[in-house]
């Protein structure tokens, strides 16, 4: 099944993945209201009430549950009504009107995405009036949209472009208006071109309802409506957490990652630079989608080979430092438990999450683990430990990081992330940019001969791999903490209760004499609920994992487009498959990590660890653009 089919559906049954469904699409947890699954839910509900209705769509009889929309009912008989403001994970907006259909007896055309079906309803989706209305809608939107698709970052992956193509639009009866709005390219992570915005409101919804950062709103009114931060500030000036979920929400190219690929090409071309790279586990889970494969289908070894082909001197893996994170963070947790430190301790791997708590809950920063993220631990070591071992001049090292994440671009530029004496990570490249580099290099990634990662910083365990999924850091930590504390070997290392797309997961794990209470949240909206509990003194957890993005890193803002909750579930499955396939699945059993401690760091939380692997946080304001009095 192609990704487009998963998002938009081509066949009657679009979603073969088992999706967890929630009643309300927004606010409560991550809404996984993928179209068919919401439909199935309605179907189940109405079976109790026997609320099936029969209607006719384009002359074909359709049985659909009461309360289903025309859009959903049409899908049953293989009719795909076009949509634009509709998003499978979001509320119904009925704003763009591109999904209009004719309903017998109705005076006006109806929006199929919002109109519920009823018994005896007769719907026509391709009458001259419908086709003309849709063309007018598209031409009106296109008249307010730049015409240079060739130069757009979303060329060939744009919902508007796709509709223009499907509707055979070759000219426009309306005058083309150039809005002439300034492009916001100040953020190190996310850029915006408001000229391309079609004002669908999808970025607003994900930022407000899912992440609760609420950076965007609709400003002005009518034709002049602009979706922008307060006072048209740059994303860099407001309390944006740089998670990039707005990029996935955007149907067009109005919001996109800052492209840093040119910096990497230059470094590779520079004979005086020793170019090394690390890659986060979530990248592999999604990267293949850029080449038409299913989530997780692309073999890790083929990516390694492609990176060598591009010209990297060493190909390492962030998983190495994910294992290291478990050693440091696990010991930090034990120390806090034993010495009465601040609890619950909260993970610090996700830079979007870090920025969120800094802006919105600066009073709770003591709860954060002082551990740097795996990316930054790796960055500090690749310019200290690695050159010492390899006999290379640290100044010549150019450190590239492949991440599923836009916030990592921001994180690597934080001033404190220079403990090696240099900027620890020189540049962060998202999964999408990596795909662009592989394509530009002309590499047939599907058929390239797989290769191995370089030692020592390319060795890793299954515990590191699952960092890419929500609950993964918690599970990896539990595997190690349990065995370190009890001295026993775990009977079953699969802590399945911390896995899955549920918004907030809780578990109690007996570790020796102690019942360790843990919680896992993904999306900062869910994290907010836990933080409110902590503030109110109602949280009795010991350890909390937070990932800023829905589903964890596999759903990050730098992952292939489209990224929907259904696709996130498929990537998560790929992550756990990879974990299960590995010979070593506990961080403390990683031989390269043992060697790192033996020959360089000495011990977890030791002097060198403290200097290179731990960090501090900055209290920020909800209104960072305001001058302090």
């Amino acid at each position: 099944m192609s990704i487009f089919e998963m998002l938009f559906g081509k066949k009657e049954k679009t979603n073969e993945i088992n999706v967890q469904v929630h009643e309300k699409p927004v606010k409560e947890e991550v809404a996984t209201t993928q179209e068919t699954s919401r439909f199935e839910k309605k179907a189940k509900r109405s079976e109790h009430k026997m609320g099936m209705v029969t209607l006719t769509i384009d002359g074909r009889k359709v049985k659909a549950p009461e309360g289903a929309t025309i859009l959903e009912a049409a899908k049953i008989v293989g009719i795909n009504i076009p949509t634009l403001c509709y998003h499978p994970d979001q509320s119904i907006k009925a704003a763009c009107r591109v999904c209009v259909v004719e309903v017998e007896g109705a005076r006006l055309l109806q929006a199929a995405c919002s109109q519920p079906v009823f018994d005896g309803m007769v719907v026509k989706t391709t009458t001259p009036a419908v086709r003309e209305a849709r063309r007018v809608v598209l031409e009106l939107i296109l008249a307010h949209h730049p015409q240079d698709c060739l130069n757009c970052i979303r060329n060939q992956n744009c919902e508007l472009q796709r509709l223009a193509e499907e509707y055979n639009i070759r000219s426009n009866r309306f005058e083309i208006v150039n809005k002439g709005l300034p492009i916001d390219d100040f953020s190190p992570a996310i850029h915006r071109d408001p000229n391309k915005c079609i004002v669908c409101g999808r970025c607003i919804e994900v930022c407000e309802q899912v992440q609760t950062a609420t950076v965007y709103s609709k400003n002005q009114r009518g034709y002049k409506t602009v979706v922008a931060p307060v006072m048209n500030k740059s994303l860099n000036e407001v309390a944006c957490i740089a998670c990039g979920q707005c990029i996935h929400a955007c149907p067009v190219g109005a919001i996109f990652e800052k492209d840093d690929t040119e910096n990497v090409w230059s470094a590779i071309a520079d004979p005086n630079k020793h170019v090394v790279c690390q890659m986060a586990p979530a990248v592999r889970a999604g990267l293949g989608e850029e080449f038409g494969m299913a989530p997780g289908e692309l073999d890790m070894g083929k990516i390694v080979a492609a990176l060598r082909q591009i010209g990297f001197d060493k190909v390492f893996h962030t998983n190495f430092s994910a294992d290291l994170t478990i050693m440091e963070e696990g010991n930090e947790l034990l120390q806090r438990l034993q010495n009465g430190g601040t609890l619950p301790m909260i993970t610090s791997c996700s830079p979007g999450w870090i920025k969120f708590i800094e802006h919105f809950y600066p009073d709770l920063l003591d709860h954060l683990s002082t551990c740097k993220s795996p990316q930054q631990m790796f960055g500090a070591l690749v310019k200290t430990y690695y050159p010492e071992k390899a006999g290379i001049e640290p100044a010549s090292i150019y450190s590239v990081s492949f991440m599923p994440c836009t916030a990592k671009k921001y994180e690597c530029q934080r001033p404190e992330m220079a403990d090696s004496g240099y900027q620890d990570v020189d540049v962060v490249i998202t999964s999408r940019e990596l795909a662009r580099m592989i394509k530009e290099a002309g590499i047939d990634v599907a058929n390239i001969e797989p290769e191995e990662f370089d030692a020592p910083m390319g060795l890793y365990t299954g515990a590191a791999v699952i960092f890419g999924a929500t609950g993964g850091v918690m599970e990896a930590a539990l595997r190690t903490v349990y065995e370190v504390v009890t001295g026993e070997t775990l009977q079953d290392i699969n802590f399945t209760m911390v896995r899955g797309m549920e918004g907030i997961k809780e578990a109690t794990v007996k570790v020796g004499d102690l019942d360790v209470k843990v919680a896992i949240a993904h999306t900062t909206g869910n994290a907010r609920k836990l933080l409110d509990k902590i503030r109110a003194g109602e949280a009795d957890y010991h350890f909390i994992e937070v990932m800023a993005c829905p589903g964890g890193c596999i759903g990050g803002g730098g992952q292939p487009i489209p990224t929907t909750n259904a696709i996130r579930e498929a990537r998560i499955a790929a992550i756990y498959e990879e974990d299960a396939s590995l010979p070593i699945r506990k961080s403390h059993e990683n031989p390269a990590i043992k060697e790192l401690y033996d020959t360089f760091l000495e011990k977890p939380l030791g002097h060198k660890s403290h200097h290179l692997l731990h960090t501090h946080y900055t209290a920020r304001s909800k209104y960072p653009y305001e001058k302090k009095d």
Partner: protein
Amino acid sequence: MTLDAIISQYRDVEGGLIEALHAIDNEYRCIPESALSKLAEAFDVPVAKVYGVATFYAKFKVGERGSNLIRVCESAPCHNAGAALVLAAIESNLGIKAGETTADGRFTLELTECVGCCNESPTITINEVPYTKLTPEKVPELLSKFR
């Protein structure tokens, strides 16, 4: 009255945000930028939403205004009566576009929805006082009274 004093009057009123914006506009003749975060805190809404509400209404202007506020009605009756020509005459007389303030801070030019003088269109208001049946020719003399 300070911004804090004004806002605190509406803090507990349902839908008080709009009321507070009106009260601030009455006092300051604009919505000072510094009011946005104060409103966000008082009404427990994100500041982006406050800005969205404030910019939705033509009556409010976030940021400073000049000492004389000219509003040109852009509703249909005034439009049909030649509002665009009047607007162009004002713009060329002042050397600014709609939404801007003259360099000397004397005039701010804005557009507005209907002001209720459709029978004498086209209409503009200067400092809330309507001037009706305007033509481009009448503009220079009218504006000179405010210089």
